[in-house]
């Protein structure tokens, strides 16, 4: 199978959906000729014109609000939010307006929009361009949240997101844009709420999202060399969450570590760990561990920034302890 980058995969998904459905359009800062700072959208304006690939002023609440209104009245906007950190700017439009319209109207109004943004530290971009804020939006009923972990997922999830009748926030890992993966030539969609078992294992389940799927995969390699068989699962969407696949795996392995690049406290890892605790408690042979980013603003200095995110070695170390039956936090 051919291999393309995550960036190309997103570009293909958008182009295919825009060809298929004339109501799909792109809105955001420097999305047209510039093709975004990450060049993800390069070439789209040439095919679809500035009428459907619309450059906006630097007005995040404004253009997200506009996308909500367009979606409520029959279009399918894909909003480009240049950095995930800018979510804070658009919280009212996203969480008070987009997320609630369907419910507040008793099901009469729908908001089929996609908010494309990104996550991920270690790009030396400091505290306001490095955050992974998926927990923030996953907390809000009415928003779906997708976290692609490779080019394959990025394309399939984007196409599904565009066709979904709800507001979907899709986070791409900005360090992964040039990472290549096998992506079929033929069309495919990845349904929401279907986790992917990335690697099968028997001793411990590593549940990882987005950027952390690679970290978990590398940890599994380290562990394999020591005779520990780790299963790696990518939920792919955290809202909706495929509990069934996660629970089945954890019931099989009896141990789990949940890894996500958002801040560890009150985060995605906590939510998933809690569900495993509630629904697989009597199958657990060790406490479910969370591994997220440190609870600090992301520092600039590479010497510090690299300390803030989970690493394969750290995941492997924790997995080793769980499998050894060590007492985690002596009672």
């Amino acid at each position, binding site marked *: 199978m051919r291999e393309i980058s995550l960036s190309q995969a997103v570009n293909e998904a958008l182009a295919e959906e825009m060809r298929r459905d*004339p*109501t799909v*359009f792109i809105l955001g800062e420097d999305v047209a000729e510039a093709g975004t700072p990450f060049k993800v959208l390069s070439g789209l304006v040439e095919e679809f014109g500035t*009428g*459907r690939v*619309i450059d*906006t*002023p630097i*007005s995040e*609440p*404004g*253009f*997200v*609000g*506009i*996308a*909500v*209104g*367009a*979606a*409520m*009245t*029959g*279009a399918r*906007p894909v909003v480009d939010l240049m950095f995930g950190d800018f979510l804070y700017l658009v919280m*009212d*439009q996203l969480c*008070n*307006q987009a997320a609630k*319209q*369907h*419910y*507040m*109207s*008793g*099901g*009469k*109004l*729908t908001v*089929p929009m996609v908010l494309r943004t990104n996550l991920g530290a270690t790009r030396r971009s400091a505290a306001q361009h490095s955050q992974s804020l998926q927990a923030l939006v996953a907390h809000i*009923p*009415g928003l*779906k949240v997708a976290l692609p972990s490779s080019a394959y997922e990025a394309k399939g999830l984007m196409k599904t997101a565009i066709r979904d*009748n*709800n507001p979907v926030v899709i986070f791409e890992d900005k360090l992964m844009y040039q990472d290549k993966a096998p992506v079929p030539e033929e069309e495919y969609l990845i349904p929401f709420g279907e986790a992917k078992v990335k690697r099968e294992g028997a001793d411990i389940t590593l549940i990882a999202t987005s950027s952390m799927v690679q970290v978990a995969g590398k940890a599994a390699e380290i562990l394999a060399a020591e005779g520990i068989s780790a299963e790696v699962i990518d939920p792919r969407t955290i809202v909706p969450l495929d509990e069934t696949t996660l629970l089945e795996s954890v019931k099989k392995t009896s141990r789990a570590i949940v890894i996500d690049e958002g801040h560890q406290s009150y985060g995605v890892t906590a939510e998933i760990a809690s569900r495993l605790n509630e629904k697989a408690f009597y199958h657990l042979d060790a406490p479910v561990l969370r591994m997220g980013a440190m609870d600090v603003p992301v520092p600039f200095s590479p010497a510090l920034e690299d300390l803030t995110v989970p690493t394969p070695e750290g995941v492997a170390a924790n997995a080793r302890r769980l499998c050894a039956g060590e007492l985690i936090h002596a009672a």
Partner: protein
Amino acid sequence: MSAAKSKTKSKVTSGPKANAEDYLRMYRQMVRIRTFEDNANQLYLSAKMPGLTHMYSGEEAVAVGICEALTDEDRITSTHRGHGHCVAKGAAFREMFCELLGKAEGYCRGKGGSMHIADQAHGNLGANAIVGGSMGIATGSALRARLLGHDDVTVCFFGDGATAQGLMYEVMNMAALWKLPVIYACENNGYSEYTPTAEIAAGSITARAEAFGIEAFTVDGQDVLAVNGLAQKLVARCRKGEGPFFVELRTYRYHGHHVGDINREYYRSKDEEKDWKENRDPIIRFRAWLVGEGIASEQEIEAMNAEIEGDAAEAVAYAEAAAYPPASEVDMHVFAD
């Protein structure tokens, strides 16, 4: 200068008799709004209505004057003080009262309430409880019309208080850049919650829009014919791609900020309220004009009023007796299929 524009003679004032039906419908809609609010006020005061509500009484000419210039295809976005827009855009009393009382037959199956009534069938994209929160939605609706080649127009209702929200400037900028078919209708009722507008808004309201190159108008919001005349003209121009527009409608709310805002003399006097109610009431003024022009007799007007009161009483009784939504609906409509 913009005030001068508002006094331009409009189509509807050119031949009163010929448009009798339109005039009577406008009068009827204004009385329906006033009657709806009187009933809602009573429901609230008698503790039959839960929550929080904001009365539109006094501002009827604004909603009716504008909405009578729109079709069901045209969209509006409304505000927390939104019952008037909802009625003016064609909503029925029964579903409205049901919604106010949280009943299953309400427009939003009881999930929205007073501050979130939406009536999509008539182009009402919904009231919004965030002040200024719907400005993006209205602008987006207009962008959609442009994008998909539709000729509908969107009117964004908001109050003078919402001019303090940054979102307004972001979306007006984009609407102007992209020449979107949207009309920003600023209902300036003189008070931003409990504070006189002069204390929260520096400079001119209309100049805010003019800074973006948006044509702006000021009109007497108590004169339904003036409002409607301007609205007809601007809607037509929007359809031709000449939008966006901004209109400041000078009006007055008879009640407090919300039902229960009783002792309000610290921010406005009873004399002022009395003057607006007795001398500038949009319904009294329009009724006198209708009778004076021979469009309707006093008896016909009284009969219309009585009929509307009967309708409202019937709708209230219906809503009071209607069923609440079943518990099974609580987690329904979080996500669309």
